[in-house]
């Protein structure tokens, strides 16, 4: 799920940046530092959308660095247990398949793939129903339900299932909006 929230961070800046562009420098450093990172609490920080405020700087003794408390608005993405997401399959093997929803890596084990879908090896490994009407292979888009999540410093891992109603391959590419 995506959220638009306000976060705060203390930015340390080298004295050489002090000047007319101080604010821009802080913002660009902030973007570089936090976009693409992950935290267990908020999930994956997708993008900074605005700066709420830049607080008063505090000079550090000895180094001359200055710390600014910055409040910023950002879009975060955090998967939840029970959430249904759409993901792109990255790898298929006999244990199941791996898929990605943005930065999130999701594993769907063959226990959680409907029993009528069988693994087919070959140059393009895939899971296919006996009548061949549904096929999951690399680059397929699937809709799956998350049943477990784990957040590391830079990565989010999930366990997903497609063994439920309305889950599985999204046949119509237009439906992914």
């Amino acid at each position, binding site marked *: 799920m995506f959220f638009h929230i306000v*976060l705060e961070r203390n930015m340390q800046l080298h004295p050489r940046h002090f000047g007319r562009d101080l604010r821009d420098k802080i913002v660009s450093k902030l973007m570089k530092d936090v976009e693409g990172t992950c935290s267990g609490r908020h999930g994956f920080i997708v993008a900074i959308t605005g700066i709420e405020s830049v607080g008063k700087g505090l000079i550090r003794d000895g180094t001359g660095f200055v710390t600014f408390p910055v409040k910023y608005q950002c879009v975060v993405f955090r998967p939840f247990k029970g959430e249904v997401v759409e993901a792109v399959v990255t790898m298929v093997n006999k244990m199941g398949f791996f898929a990605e929803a943005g930065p999130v890596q999701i594993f769907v084990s063959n226990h959680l793939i409907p029993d009528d879908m*069988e693994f087919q090896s070959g140059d393009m490994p895939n899971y296919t129903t006996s009548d061949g009407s549904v096929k999951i292979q690399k680059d397929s888009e699937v809709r799956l339900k998350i049943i477990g999540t784990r957040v590391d410093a830079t990565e989010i891992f999930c366990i997903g299932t497609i063994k439920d109603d309305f889950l599985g391959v999204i046949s119509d590419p237009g439906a992914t909006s």
Partner: protein
Amino acid sequence: MSLAADSPVHSSSSDDFAALLDAELDIISDASADIQEVAEEEENIDVEEGDYDLKFDRAKRRKVEPYENVADLPSSSSQGSSPNKDECQHPGVYAGMCMKCGIKMDDESGVAFGYIHKNLRLANDEISRLREKDLKKLLHHKKLYLVLDLDHTLLNSTRLVDLTVEEGHLIDQRGALPDTLKRDLFRLGSMQMMTKLRPFVHTFLKSASSMFEMYIYTMGERPYALEMAKLLDPGDVYFNSRIIAQGDCTQRHQKGLDIVLGQESAVLILDDTEAVWKKHKDNLILMERYHFFASSSKHFGFNCKSLSELRSDESESDGALATVLRVLLRIHSLFFDPGRDDNLLDRDVRQALRTVREEVLMGCKVVFSRVFPTNFQAEQHHLWKIAMQLGATCSMELDSSVTHVISLDAGTDKSRWAVQEKKFLVHPRWIEASNYLWKRQPEENFPVASTVALLDYSLK
């Protein structure tokens, strides 16, 4: 950026975050139970972060003191197991979560399958289940498993700095190289290496892929293995994620089939080193080492010119890979012989391999002369063992049924007897050559020089 400075900031903003969520979720919580779960999960987040140490501690303690709970274990287990039969068996762990029920698990049990995903571990039951299921499907497609080594088996690599002067033409005059060589010779700038694929390897992989599900199994580092796989299999059709490198092995300096998802009775291995496959010698087809670069042959103690320096190469149609492909074909057809009436699942490819190997020197009876050191148990010698594996009978005594005398010296009694009786007198290399080439070699190519003759030669 001290942690202390960061933490108050985080807690305040996450309160905002939680409040926002609460507000958001209160509106819709009645509508769906699932979403309520989400809300609960969200509340848990704070607990998770704050009490992480405590929780971790608890989990640890539970692990360390299992005996304290022994008294109430029977009651709890009888309660636990009987009502829900479909309790999750936790077949495997992905990033610390059970891959079936999603519950958090921190134990390090099972076998790591790092080559499939760095965070994947499978329990032993699950592995055997997968193997069984996979074998049935594979046999249905008339396929077996084939595990391939990289270095000296499918290719030869050298560091650029180790190239000799005579090999300089490989770099300087690349344009002038013959087309076949140009096709199989790669310079990997990023790794400072040069790799030469063994002749026939493309045809080999193509033919073998129709009979086998193939793995790469190398003692090299993972990035190297992936790079080599790209050279061997640019279309990514043969190996997919079945590339096992050094870090994936469960035992140091040993290759094991425990991380190969294939039943041992259906796996064949191609490797040039026997010692690393201690537990799986019966599955192994030993390959003659491929040395293209000078540094590689020097590493193994050969002082002759390398193929690269001689500007030559193994034969495309008669080289080791072509030979072994014929052997694989033979084993495959033997395994899937429609004339056999036993169950396909009960067949063992190791048996087929043994049978094919025994055909090589079938009907030969060999006697060794001055091959083993005195006081050496003849049966323990590797040549004796190889001869037996190739289907020859080995004997210590001379009699009329003997067909070959294997000797290092034409001057011994046994050697002279062989000449007298018009038996084959061959050098031990005859056995080794027959072993590598899977064919009884023409005996006249392996003559035995007498020490006298050798002396004569050296005097000239």
